[in-house]
C-alpha cells in the first residue's frame, strides 16, 4: 500500500488529478453546479474535439516533434468535406463524410510527415508553414464562408445521443453525443499501439534518443511520417465531429486552438522534448484545460480573463514539469557519481 502511494506521488498524473479535483470542489462550493449529472455530461461532450486533437498532438510530442497545424488541417478538411457533400446533395449517413475526412486528413498529414520525417526539417517551423498554407487554401482557393446548413446525415449524427442526463433540481438536461464513442475508440487504439506494438515502443524510443533508436533498428523516418499522418487523420475526424455537433460549418473558429491543446498535453506530464508521457496524463491535462475554459463562468470569473488564465496555466504547468525533469536529471547524475 505504502509502495503504491509512493509510486503514485512520483507521477505527474496524480498531481493533475488532484488539481482537477480541487478545482471541481471550488466550482462546486462557489456555484453548486459542478457535481450535477448534466454538468459532467456537458464537460465530457466538450472534451470530444479537444480530446481527439490531444491524442494526435500527444503522439507527435512523444517523438520530440510538435504539430501546430492541426486546427488549420481540421478546418480545411471539415470545410472541404462539408462543402463537397452539400454541392453533391449527399443524403446518406455519417460514414462517407468520416471516410472522406480520413482520406483528406491523411494526405495533409503526409505533407507534414514528409517534410519532418523524411527531410528532417524542424517540426515547429514546418507545421507553422503548413498551417498557413492550409488556411490559405481554405480561405483563398475554396473561398470559405460560413455554411449554415450541413448534410442531413451529419446533422443526425450530431444530434443523436447515447443517453441524456437530467439535473433534477434545475430541470436542465444534457445529451451525451454518439461521437464520444469515437474518442473512446481512438484512445483505446492509441493505448494498444503504444503499449503492445513495435511501432508504439519506437515512438518512445525516438523521443528518448533518436540516434539510439535508429541504431537499435527502429525505422525512425517511417515512424515519424506515420505519426503525422495519424495526427492528421484524428484531427480531421475531430473537425468533422465539431461541424456535426455545431450543426453548421464555421471555417475559422477552430483556428488558434493549438496552443491550448499543446498546453493540456504538456500539463499532463508529457515531456516537450519527447520520450516521456502517458495517455492518461494527456487526457487529464486536456480535461483540466477544458474545465478551466468552460467553468470560468461558474466561479464568477468574466470570460475576458480566459486568455490570462490559460496563459498562466501553460507557464506554471510547463515550469513545474521542467523543474521536475531537471531535478530528475541531477538526481540521476548524482547516482552516477556515487556509483563511480
Amino acid at each position, binding site marked *: 500500500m505504502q509502495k503504491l502511494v509512493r509510486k503514485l506521488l512520483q507521477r505527474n498524473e496524480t498531481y493533475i488529478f488532484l488539481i482537477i479535483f480541487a478545482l471541481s470542489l471550488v466550482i462546486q462550493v462557489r456555484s453548486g453546479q459542478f457535481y450535477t449529472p448534466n454538468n459532467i455530461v456537458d464537460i465530457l461532450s466538450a472534451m470530444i474535439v479537444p480530446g481527439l486533437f490531444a491524442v494526435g498532438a500527444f503522439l507527435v510530442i512523444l517523438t520530440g516533434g510538435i504539430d501546430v497545424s492541426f486546427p488549420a488541417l481540421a478546418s480545411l478538411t471539415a470545410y472541404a468535406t462539408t462543402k463537397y457533400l452539400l454541392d453533391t446533395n449527399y443524403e446518406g449517413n455519417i460514414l462517407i463524410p468520416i471516410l472522406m475526412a480520413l482520406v483528406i486528413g491523411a494526405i495533409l498529414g503526409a505533407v507534414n510527415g514528409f517534410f519532418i520525417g523524411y527531410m528532417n*526539417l524542424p517540426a515547429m517551423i514546418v507545421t507553422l508553414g503548413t498551417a498557413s498554407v492550409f488556411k490559405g487554401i481554405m480561405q483563398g482557393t475554396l473561398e470559405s464562408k460560413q455554411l449554415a446548413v450541413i448534410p442531413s446525415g451529419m446533422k443526425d449524427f450530431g444530434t443523436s445521443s447515447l443517453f441524456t442526463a437530467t439535473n433534477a433540481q434545475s430541470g436542465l438536461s444534457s445529451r451525451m453525443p454518439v461521437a464520444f464513442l469515437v474518442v473512446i475508440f481512438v484512445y483505446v487504439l492509441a493505448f494498444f499501439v503504444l503499449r503492445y506494438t513495435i511501432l508504439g515502443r519506437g515512438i518512445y524510443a525516438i523521443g528518448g534518443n533518436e540516434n539510439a533508436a535508429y541504431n537499435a533498428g527502429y525505422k525512425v523516418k517511417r515512424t515519424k511520417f506515420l505519426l503525422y499522418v495519424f495526427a492528421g487523420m484524428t484531427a480531421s475526424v475531430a473537425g468533422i465531429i465539431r461541424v456535426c455537433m455545431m450543426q453548421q460549418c464555421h471555417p475559422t473558429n477552430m483556428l488558434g486552438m493549438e496552443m491550448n491543446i499543446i498546453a493540456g498535453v504538456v500539463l499532463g506530464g508529457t515531456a516537450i522534448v519527447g520520450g516521456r508521457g502517458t495517455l492518461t496524463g494527456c487526457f487529464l491535462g486536456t480535461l483540466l484545460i477544458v474545465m478551466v475554459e468552460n467553468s470560468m463562468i461558474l466561479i464568477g470569473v468574466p470570460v475576458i480573463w480566459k486568455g490570462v488564465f490559460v496563459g498562466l496555466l501553460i507557464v506554471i504547468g510547463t515550469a513545474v514539469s521542467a523543474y521536475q525533469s531537471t531535478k530528475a536529471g541531477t538526481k540521476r547524475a548524482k547516482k552516477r557519481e556515487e556509483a563511480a
Partner: protein
Amino acid sequence: MENKQAGAGSKIKNIYKSDRHMWRLIIIMILWFVFMAVTKFSKFYTVVNFQTMFAQFPEFGLMSLGVMVCMITGGIDLSTVGVANMTGISMALLMQWASGESQELSPIWILIVFVLAILIGMVTGAINGILVSKVHIPPILATLGTGQLFTGLGLVMTNGSAISGFPSTYAFSINNRVAGIPVQFLIFVVVAIVMAFLLSKTTYGKKLMLIGTNENVAKFSGLKVDHILIKTYTLSGICSALGGMIMLANYNSARSDYGSNYTLQCILIVVLGGVSPNGGKGKISGVLLAIFLVRALETGINRFPQISSYYISLIWGAVLIFVMVLNYFTENNVKLFSKKKA
C-alpha cells in the same frame, strides 16, 4: 575539372557560394523588381508607394530582429506579437489618461511613452529569459505561454475592443516624415544599427553564436549562459515593444488581436534571411534584406486586385517551406540538376 573558359563562371560561382543566402535573396529581389516593372510599373514605382512601404515594414521588421537574436541562440520567441500589442494598448491607455478631456498632449509625453514601452519590453523579455534559462522551459513553450498571457492581459485591459480615442499628437509625430523619410523607418534604422553592432563588434555577439552552436560547450568554456539568454530575450522584448509602438502609430489604435499573422511572418523572415532554426548561424544583413523583400512582395501582390488577400498566408507558408527545403539541399550537398561526374 573546369577549363579556362569557365574561369569567369567559376569566379561568379565562388562569390555566390561565399554567401548563398544573401545572393539568393538578392536574385529573388531583382527578379521581383523586374517583374513589377514589367507588369505594374506606374503603380509600383512611385515615391509614395516606397514611402508607405518604408513606413510599414518597421513594425514587423523590429519584431523579426527580436526573433532573430533568439533563434541564433537556438531558441525562438513566439510572444513578440503579444508583447507588441500589450505595450501598444497600455501606452494608448496612458496617453488617453494623460491627455484627459482636452485631447492635447505635450511632446514630452512621446518621449516618456517610448521609455515606458522599452521598460515594458525589458520586463516581458526578462520574464521569457528567466523562464527559458533558469526554469529550463523549452523556448517554444515558454514564449507560447507568455504570448498567450500577454495577449490575454491586453484583452482584459481593452475589454476586447479597440482603443482609439487617444490624442492624435502621437500618431501624427510618428507618421511624420523627416526629409521624405518616414520616422518609423528611422526608428528601425537606429535599432538595426545597434543590433548589428552588438552582433558583430561585441563579445556578446560571439557568445550568442557559441551558445547557439553548442550550449554545453559554451557552459563548459565558462560563459554565463543564463545571463546571456536573459539578455537576449530582453533584447527581443524591447524590439517587440518598439514594434508595438509603431503599430500603434500606424493603425492609430490598439487592440489585442492586431497583427496576429506576424508571428509566422517573423519566423519566415528570419529563416529566409539565413538564420538556422537550430541556432548558431545567422547574419543581420540577410535578415534586413529578407524584411524588405517580404514587404516588397506583399506590396507587389496587393497591386494585383484579382489575387485575394487570403492567398498571402498561403504564399508565406509555401515560401517558408520552400526556403527550408532549399537550405536542406544546399546543406546536405544534394545536387538535383547537376551532371553526374564520370
